[in-house]
């Protein structure tokens, strides 16, 4: 839904929990070059990217937000390291809800007289949810690829 970049240094990264593939941070605080700060709260980060989000890491950070779901999808550090990752759980969940509820509605229409309103509403909501998360992922990938070869300026001595 929205992607953007932050050029700066990780000042604080407060981890809430780490799972096998992804980490959730209470907040990640960035210090920008002009001295101001930028906070990314309740951030979801794939572990390849999370491994680079340690205090002191300087570079370009690729952020995304979709509904109430925010995170860091990529990073390019000033010492040449880079990582990208975007979870697809919500995308698959939207698709799963859409397919299963559509099938349920079709079954109800063909075998029963009525249709469950809840199944119908969930089927209608599942598709935009899938499309929205898919589009956000594609936008994040595009933004990261567009910067290929970019190397953030090293910190002034």
């Amino acid at each position, binding site marked *: 839904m*929205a992607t953007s970049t932050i050029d700066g240094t990780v000042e604080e990264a407060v981890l809430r929990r780490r799972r096998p593939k992804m980490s959730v941070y209470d907040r990640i605080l960035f210090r920008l070059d002009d001295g*101001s700060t*930028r*906070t990314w*709260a309740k951030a979801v980060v794939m572990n390849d990217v999370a491994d680079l989000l340690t205090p002191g890491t300087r570079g370009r950070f690729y952020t995304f*937000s979709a*509904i109430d779901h925010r995170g860091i999808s990529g990073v390019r550090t000033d010492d040449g390291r880079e990582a990208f990752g975007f979870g697809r759980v919500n995308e698959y969940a939207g698709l799963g809800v859409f397919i299963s509820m559509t099938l349920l509605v079709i079954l109800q229409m063909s075998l029963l007289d009525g249709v469950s309103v809840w199944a119908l509403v969930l089927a209608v*909501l599942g598709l935009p949810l899938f499309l929205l998360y898919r589009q956000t992922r594609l936008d994040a990938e595009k933004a990261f690829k567009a910067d290929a070869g970019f190397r953030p300026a090293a910190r002034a001595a």
Partner: protein
Amino acid sequence: MTTYVYRDAAGLAETARWALYADSLVCAAAVAIALVQGPWALLYGDLAAAFGIVQLVTAVGSLILFLLWFYRANANVRAMGADGLTGSPGLSVAWFFIPIVFLFMPFVVMRDTWKASASPRDWQGQPTAPLIGFWWAAMLATHLAASFSFRLWLSGDYDVVEAVGVLDLISHSAGILANLLSVALMMRIQRLQVSPAHLSETFR
């Protein structure tokens, strides 16, 4: 990327404020009639139809004005430099009408608009004001009670009239609270919003 232009929403907020007061007054009258004459008065009394029309006009009118103001306030925080906000100003308003999602997304977008008004460039680090939680709880109570009441009334059974009356009483009472909290919320956000031309570096 869409560029948003800051437009002062003070006039819109003032109009919405008076519309919300008017709706509160109508809700208060409904509560008073229900308490004095009984729950039947608003459903089958002599003035039921006329009062229903007045209620509909003030409720819909105040909601439209409030959402117009919210659209503008949400667009303004984007113009003030807030990024990473959910969707667009239009989608922020649309959440109020999307089934299931309307149970939580209006709270999320209002919370984010408040935070971004307080500190556009670093809004995610701002604390959530408790007023937003109270506002949303009152809004949900109003609309859920009204929705259940309407469904019961549609069933057409005579023995549900009392339950419909009680639910209407809850809906109207919560509606007064929701309206007053909406006004408080709107005025606080209005005070927080500053034209980008006047934003100082420290505020950013």
